[in-house]
């Protein structure tokens, strides 16, 4: 995935879309104050300068699907691992909730269900049937909307053609009004993401840790 920070307006449409697509539970203000929020994607804000002469920069942070993911080797039950497609996936029914992965994630993008998830009425009626609802005690994280990836692969397989570039759109990408997020196959050198990842503006978040993140941020050097 490529995220163009020069386009991002920090509107948080991606956060809402992600919650809605992936049946992510809603925490209360009290729980949030204790750090028990559930988000698979969040918008980090950075302020430059002093009020009123202030500049705000936004950075959507989601699971970076690191090639050398720090969360994976610490899981005692192999609930998180790299699948053959290169996704860092979480197997909910294997997870026993040790929290090691979240503690080891430098991006703090994993969220834990401290309790069974709850939704304010009537939002419990709009669950996505393609995604399971994770019970309490289970860690969860961004899957790059694996249900949508599967659906597109399935349609392509039925039609007997390869998956086209840009055909898979995770909920955040689809909802972004500024078109700041682009999803595609980094292994395909002709894909749009590969092209943008080679852009002069390309950076990766905390790359110096050696995690080899697979989310590329485009940002003009200032």
């Amino acid at each position: 995935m490529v995220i163009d920070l020069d386009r991002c307006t920090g509107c948080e449409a991606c956060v809402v879309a992600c919650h809605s697509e992936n049946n992510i539970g809603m925490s209360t203000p009290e729980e949030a104050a204790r750090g028990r929020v559930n988000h698979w994607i969040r918008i980090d804000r950075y302020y430059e300068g002093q009020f009123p002469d202030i500049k705000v920069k936004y950075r959507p942070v989601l699971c970076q699907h690191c090639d050398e993911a720090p969360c994976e080797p610490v899981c005692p039950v192999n609930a998180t691992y790299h699948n053959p497609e290169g996704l860092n996936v979480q197997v909910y029914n294997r997870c026993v909730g040790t929290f090691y992965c979240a503690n080891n994630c430098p991006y703090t993008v994993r969220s834990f269900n401290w309790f069974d998830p709850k939704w304010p009425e009537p939002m419990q009626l709009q669950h996505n049937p393609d995604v399971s609802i994770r019970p309490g005690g289970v860690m969860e994280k961004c899957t790059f909307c694996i249900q949508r990836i599967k659906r597109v692969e399935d349609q392509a397989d039925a039609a007997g053609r390869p998956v086209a570039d840009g055909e898979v759109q995770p909920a955040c990408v689809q909802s972004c009004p500024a078109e700041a997020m682009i999803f595609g196959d980094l292994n395909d050198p002709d894909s749009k993401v590969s092209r943008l990842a080679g852009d002069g503006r390309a950076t990766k978040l905390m790359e110096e840790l050696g995690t080899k993140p697979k989310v590329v941020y485009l940002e003009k050097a200032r």
Partner: protein
Amino acid sequence: MKHLFLLLLSVALVVPCLRADQPILFPHSTHINKVHLKCIDCHISADTRDAATIPGVRKCMLCHAKIAADKPEIKKLAAIAASGREIPWQRVYGFEKAAAVKFRHGPHARHKVACATCHGDMPNAITAQPLVKHNMGTCISCHRQNNASDDCATCHY
């Protein structure tokens, strides 16, 4: 003694087929063997979509408004149709919520997995009933035999 054994055996074989915990004693056998319906004539999206789907009562009434309308089970059906409700079928197959499994019929049908592989001998069954036990072992062994993916995230997400 031998007769008693045979009696018990026949009871054991017959009773599961007469399980009437479905609201209507829908005979799959009659519809498949006598009317020559195919599975996908009623479970219309079993070959293309995720869910096989159960037909609505209006579909039943397409035929049964006229055919066999005097039989007691069809009268039950007609009463439900007249009430404007759907038949409260009992779910037969399914996964525990905690298993976080997503099964999609479409890809299985496309790769020529016969309905009977997972659903058993429905042509000779009466009401819908779990003829084949579904667990992860059955899924995985079939996947491995047919070189399908055995990656966890293929089904668990």
